[in-house]
């Protein structure tokens, strides 16, 4: 299982979104790495990509709102990380469509997405939670 309880920030709405994101990415990776032929995988891959495009933007927006609400000083830098990932996702999706569903491109995307997501949630997002807790604004009263 990709998700680990240690990733929890103590902010219920963000934690729920992170769990959903991890669940979707895990499902995407299972399809991507399965033994099935590539053509058969394409519908499921496309479905996940459509979800990601919509959900990542929504989640990042909610997370940025939360950062603003607690006065997180690293807001601008964190927003830049989000923007960088959104741009990367959109760029890959464009190339993927232009290449008529190139498998190698999607394998590269999967590898980077896995490492990026784990680092982002396990390291970058934890700084927000540490700051909020220090300021007495932790979402679960920590």
């Amino acid at each position, binding site marked *: *299982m*990709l998700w680990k309880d*240690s990733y929890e920030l103590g902010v219920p709405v963000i934690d729920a979104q992170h769990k959903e994101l991890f669940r979707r990415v895990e499902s995407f*990776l*299972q399809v*991507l*790495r399965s033994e099935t032929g590539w053509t058969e995988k394409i519908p499921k891959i496309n479905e996940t990509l459509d979800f990601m495009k919509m959900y990542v933007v929504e989640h990042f927006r909610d997370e940025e709102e939360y950062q603003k609400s607690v006065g997180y000083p690293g807001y601008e830098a964190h927003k830049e990380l989000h923007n960088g990932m959104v741009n990367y996702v959109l760029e890959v999706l464009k190339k993927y469509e232009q290449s008529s569903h190139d498998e*190698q491109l999607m*394998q*590269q*995307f*999967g*590898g*980077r997405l*896995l*490492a*990026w997501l*784990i*680092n982002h949630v*396990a*390291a970058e997002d*934890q700084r927000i939670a540490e700051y909020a807790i220090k300021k007495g604004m932790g979402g679960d009263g920590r």
Partner: protein
Amino acid sequence: MEDKIYKTFVDATHNVFNLMLNISDISDQPGEKFNCDREIDIAIGVVGDLQGKVIYRFPVATSLGIVRLMSGMEFNEVDAFVTSAISEIANIISGNVLTALSENMKCDILPPVQCEPEDDKEYEIKTSCCICAAIGDICLEIRLNKAA
């Protein structure tokens, strides 16, 4: 300067392995101790007050182990997925190093690229370290010049 940069890379690798892979027992040795036949070499270019590159040498077995740990899935050979995930880890470690050095110098990193480890060019800062962890060793070859 060389010692400080060496230590910053070791510390950043330690932090990234700890947070991303839950591996905390890490030590470092001089790069000469690194011994590997089959590896993935990833170069991260550096521009700004420091210029050059850092080459991350990930043995195949270590790379597969790292991706297995992150995904919980089996990986038996290096492919585009594994190379991309390992490249992102090199990118993350390098980004953390530049953040740690940012009070004293302004640098940026370039996207990771696969490369060959040999490099005959001379650099003002030329050092390497072998990071030893339960998942296996990796070698970082640091090749940097101070901007004129």
